[in-house]
Each structure stands twice: as C-alpha cells, then as structure tokens.
C-alpha cells in the first residue's frame, strides 16, 4: 500500500518567490502548472516540470488584491477585492469573461466537483452560484447577517461545495455557517461556531477571527470549520489555531481540534483517501502546516513553513503539497514509503 503523504516526513522541497502575499492557489494537473495570485493583483504560474521551478508573472487583469482562484477547463477563474470574477484563458492570459460579481470584496471561490458550476462569496454577505463556462449568474443565496452583533462590518470569508455537489457551505466572520441546497436555493441549515469570533468589548473594543476556511469530508458526513479560537489580544492572531468538525446534517459538533500554536488557520482540507485533516495558516507563533488525525484533539505533526500560508492543495496522487502565502509558492514533499 502506498502512503499518500507522511506528515511526519514533510519537507519543504522548493520555494518560488513572489512579492507580497499570495492569497489564492490552483493547479492544472494535466500541465503540472500551479497558479497563484494575491496582493500585487497579478497571476503567477510555476511550471513544476521545470528543473528549477520559478514563479513567472503571467497577467494582471484585476485592479485589486486577488483573493480566490479556480482552474476549470483551461480557464483560470479569479475573484478579487475589485469585486469582479474574471475568466482568463490560461494559455493566452486573455480575459474570456469579466463579471461584476459582488458588491464588496470577493473572499473565496469554489468549483463544483464536475467543474460545471462555481460558488463565490463576498463582503455583500451573499453566496452566488455561477455557470463555470459562461459566467452566467445562476442563483444568489442570502442568509448571513450584514453586520456583527456589535454593529460593525462583517465578512463572508469561506465557501465549500459538498462532494456530491448538492450543498454549499458558507462561513462568516461572526462564526455562522449557512448550508444551502444548490438546486432549490433553500437554506438547509445553520451552524453556529462562536468560538471563531472574539469580540473584546473592554480592553481593545474590537474583534478578530472569523471562519476562514470550510471543507466537506470525502464521505460528505462532516464539515470542517477552521480559523482561530478565543483570542486574548485582538490586536493579533494570539489565540490557538482551531478546527471544529460538525455533523452538518444533524447540526452537531463532533470534534474540536485545537493547538497551542497561536495562529489563524486560513485553509483546511480533508486528505482525499485518509481520515486526516491538513491545515495551514499563521499568526503570533509563526506559520503553521499541521496534520491532524480527525479523531484526535492534538495534531499528528506540525511542520514549520516558510512564512504564513494562505492556501494549499495536494497533487492528484497525494505525493506533494503545494502552498501559497507570504513570499510566494512552497512545494512540500514527504519520504513516503511503499509496501
């Protein structure tokens, strides 16, 4: 049996530098090309087949930070703080569709498993469903509070698609998750995970936190919610990194994974074949790339990445982990053993 990725042997194999912060990452598995984008508005790519991979600036179609990216059928689809979704032909760098998608920063984007639709979320606190080929708006889901309970601006940071494509989960700053039926547009359920939001009414009179990432388990039974636990000093990510696992259909929390490493987890994913969670982020204790047995509270292994990670993904056979964040791209390998 081949072990997909032995976290205890995780090793940073390659870095490809990019100015500023990469917020978004996607992968063209066929070509072996990574695409990343972020604070300098541009899309960069890395040819992983090259002897010495480097980050190459490919195009600049947005007019603000690029916060989300998906690769669908030869197009790199990007979402930005400029409120637009742009479909760009990967080969040419030419925009195919430009859509004024949200009235606010676009925070996240997720492609359906069949690649035919996309869901985006933005600071208008709406979830929007798109035809992934044409850019046509198919539906809008409205269910998140427009302000924090204290009357301040909130945000809708995260979106995830269920493996069967029938449900969408969206997560906001104040710790609420909405679950939407894709076909009917109905709100199928709400989860409240308030630990992810810390409001300090006395010392600093402001807040920090939010649900920063969501992921359905491969068996579609569990929803992982990631961010930061209760924060003692809301000036910074000075709280424990935290993942909660929920039986989303019954609305019950089934597990809490929390570590003393002080950081916000910007991304969570289930391993495709193993009962394991992978999380990444950064904060007061520095960057973190951690691997969790979903049944245990403590991580199996914590790796120290170069800089804070915003997004990561595994390659098709699970042998490599690609990450993007402060300073650029990172490629992680493990000395996986075959029996």
């Amino acid at each position, binding site marked *: 049996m081949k072990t997909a990725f032995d976290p205890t042997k995780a090793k940073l194999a390659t870095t490809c530098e990019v*100015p*500023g*912060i990469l917020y978004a990452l996607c992968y063209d598995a066929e070509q072996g090309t990574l695409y990343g984008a972020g*604070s*300098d508005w541009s899309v960069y790519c890395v040819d992983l087949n090259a002897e010495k991979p480097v980050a190459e600036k490919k195009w600049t179609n947005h007019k*603000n*930070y690029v916060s989300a990216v998906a690769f669908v059928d030869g197009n790199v689809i990007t979402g930005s*703080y400029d409120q637009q979704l742009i479909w760009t032909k990967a080969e040419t760098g030419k925009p195919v569709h430009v859509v004024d998608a949200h009235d606010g*920063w676009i925070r996240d984007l997720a492609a359906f498993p069949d690649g035919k639709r996309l869901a985006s979320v933005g600071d208008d606190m709406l979830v929007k469903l798109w035809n992934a080929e044409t850019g046509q708006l198919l539906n809008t889901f409205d269910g998140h509070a427009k302000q*924090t309970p*204290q*009357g*301040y*601006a909130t*945000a809708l940071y995260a979106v995830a698609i269920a493996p069967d494509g029938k449900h969408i989960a969206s997560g906001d700053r104040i710790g609420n998750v909405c679950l939407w039926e894709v076909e009917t547009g109905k709100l199928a359920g709400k989860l409240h995970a308030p630990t992810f939001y810390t409001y300090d*009414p*006395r*010392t*600093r*009179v*402001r*807040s*920090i936190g*939010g649900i920063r990432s969501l992921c359905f388990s491969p068996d579609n039974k569990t929803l992982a919610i990631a961010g930061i636990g209760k924060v003692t000093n*809301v*000036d*910074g*990510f*000075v709280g424990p990194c935290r993942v909660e696992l929920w039986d989303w259909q019954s609305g019950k929390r089934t597990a809490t994974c929390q570590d003393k490493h002080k950081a*916000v987890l910007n991304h969570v994913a289930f391993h495709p074949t193993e009962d394991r969670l992978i999380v990444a982020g*950064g*904060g*007061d204790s520095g*960057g973190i790339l951690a691997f969790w047995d979903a049944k245990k509270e403590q991580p199996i292994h914590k790796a120290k990445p170069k*800089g*804070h990670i915003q997004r990561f993904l595994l390659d098709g056979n699970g042998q490599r982990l690609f990450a993007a964040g*402060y*300073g650029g791209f990172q490629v992680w390998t493990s000395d996986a053993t075959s029996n």
Partner: protein
Amino acid sequence: MTFLSTNGHPLNRPLHRRGVLQGMLAGSAGVFGVGNVGIAKDTATAKSAESGQNRVLFIWLAGGASQFEMWDPKTSRETGGPFRSIPTAVPGYHVGELMPKLAQQMDKMAVVRSLNTAITAHGPAADLISTGRPKEPALDYPEIGVVLARELAVQGSKLPDYVSFFLSTEGRRRPATGFMGGSHAPMLLEKSMRPKDIDLPEGLSDLRHKEREHLRNLLSSEFARGRVGGQLVSGYNSAFAKVRGLMQSKGLFDIEQEPVTVRERYGRTAFGQQCLAARRLLEAGVPMVKVARGFWDSHHDNFESHRELTPDFDNVLSVLLTDLDERGLLDSTLVIVLSEFGRTPKINKDVGRDHYAAAWSCAFAGCGIKGGAVHGKTDADGKTVVDGQANASDIAATIYRAVGIDLQKEYHSGLRPVPIAKEDAKPLDGILA
C-alpha cells in the same frame, strides 16, 4: 460679526442664530435647554454662548491608526493595501474609501500628512504627541489637553474644565498634569460614561449637603490661611465647588435625554455614544473633552481591523461635525484627531502594519482651522515626508494657535519659566484660518 478669542484675537467666526437665541434665553430666563438638559443659568453654558468661549474635542485613536487606510491613501502601490481612494469635497485630495462621509466634509477639515515624530514605542510616542514636547528629566510637561483646559476655562464655571473618556483599557493614559499639578487633572470617565457618586446619598437633602459644603469650605480656608501650600488647598476648594456644579448638571452625561433621531445618527457603538456625550458637554460649556477610541494597533489583520473601526469613525465624526455646525458650535470648537503614530508602509506576513512614525497623518476641524487645507506630502509609497515635515511640537503649537492661545505665554515651574509651546515649534500656518 466677529467673536473675540480668549486672548483678544479676532477669530472671524459668524454669529449663529442658535447661539444668539441661546444667549438671549440665558439672559432672560432662569434655565434654558441645551440638548434637552435643564442647566442652571449660572453654569458655563450661558457664559459660553455669550462670550464666544472656545472649546476643544480631542479624539485620540489609541494604538496608532493607519494613515494609508485613512488620510494618505497610496492606491495601486505595493504599500497601499487593498482599499481604494475616493475623491473628497476638496478638489485633488483623496481619502481612503472607508471614509465616504468624511470625504464629503473635507472642506470643513484640515489634514496634516507629513508628521515625522521618530518614536515608535506606544508609551513614549504617546507622551511625545500628547505633550508636544520631548521628555526632559528635569521637568514633567502637562498634556496639551490640560493646558487647553486651563487656558480655555471659564472663570467661575461649576462644570469641569476637562472631561476625558477612556473606557477601553489598552493604551489607556491619564492626561498628565505635569508641573501644573493635580488640581488641573481632568475628570476621568474610565468605567462608565457617567461620573460615579454624583447623586446625593439616600437620606441626605440638598440643603444639608450645601450646609456641609459651607462648613468644609470654612474649615479649609482657615487651614490654608498663612500656610505654605495654600494653592493646593484652594485647588481642593475649587474641585469641591465643581462637584456641586456637576451634581446640578448630571443630566449632561445622560445621552438618553437626546432625541432618538440624534442618538441613531451617532450610532450605537461606544465611540458614537461617547462623542454624543462629548458634544453635550462641549455645548454646555466644558472647554476640553477628550474621547479615546481604542485600539488601532493592527500588527495582524490590518485591513480587517480598519474595515471594522474606520467606518464607525467615519460615521461618528461626520455626524459630530454636522451636529456641531448645526448648533453653531463648530466655529468655536477645535476638533483634533491624533494617534501616537501611524502604521508601516510594509505589509507584514500577518497582513498587518507595524508602528511607523516617519511619515504619518492627523486631522483637524473647527475653531481656527482652515477647512479644506491639506498640509504636507509623502512620497509615492508613503515612506518618507517630501514636503512640509512637522513634528509633535509643531502640532501642539498649531493647536494652541487655533484656539487663540498666545504661544509666547509662559507658565512657571518653580522659578523656571516654561513657554506654552516649545521654543522652536512652528505652527502650521497653512491649516490655520
């Protein structure tokens, strides 16, 4: 028609209809309404309306607000961050998109974009900005607000000369009285917007309370007679007199007495409520009010924290300026917006900005200020001041001059004469009316 400032300099302020009405009412009736609060006519309110008293509201953005996200945006630059800049009522001047309401009122405000104050540690930087003086081992300087309260105080007022709201705890600083001594300390509101213990104890009548005060005053005066330190005792006497005035005007601190529409305009945030209370105090004749809004120290998640804090600041300050203007108070009320420093051009790995004092901004409005003025300039990335560099002493001198205080005036610490403004301070004439 012009008012005269406290030192006799004309301020070229128009006389507002409301002010005239208030003055007339004050002269003809026992009480008159200010913000729906009945105040005895011998309080400062009446005198304030009649005499053209100047006042100051000092808004302290504790922790260090980001100039990039507010007054000096650098859109499209690596240092600029994701917020766009928007045009303002002043042609050619843009502010950050989080301040759309203030953008429309920039013709009432003046901005200084060229502060270089060197110190990047919270405490020492706050000391520097608050006093307008570098630290000196031999002399403790008072906070600017303490000087303003003393200079703008109305003789015989029974209201406090200085009320300081600092209800959050991080970065809380009590205004230093320095060599002026404790008798110039402000009334501190740190746990509640209402002073505690201003109600008579149960069972104690007002008459009985007055009698006790007469007795205390008599004993106190006897004690002070012929003793060294008599000033200290008279300071206590003055403080006790103000307690009486305060008890009579306790409704001033109750913003529930404002119409619902006014309270809604200010919003339900703590900062909004405190600024509304501040307006009530200023209107009643308190010459110096400070409202601290913490905490802007955005080492992590700078953009999220400014998304949260700045729209509230934008709403509250724009409502406040309009409210002061409508009440005829803006021309006699200097509004100061200051922090201890700004934020770094570099966006760090935590998507934060750290402390930066080499090029940052502050803002003013109202009394003595030339609306629409923009002083100084930073480079394209906001890293250095390229024009009109100003330091903390210059800002202090500008504040004093705006309200008509003679910069040459001297206090004494023992035998040592101490000028109000630092000797080499240069007031920023370009933002002064």
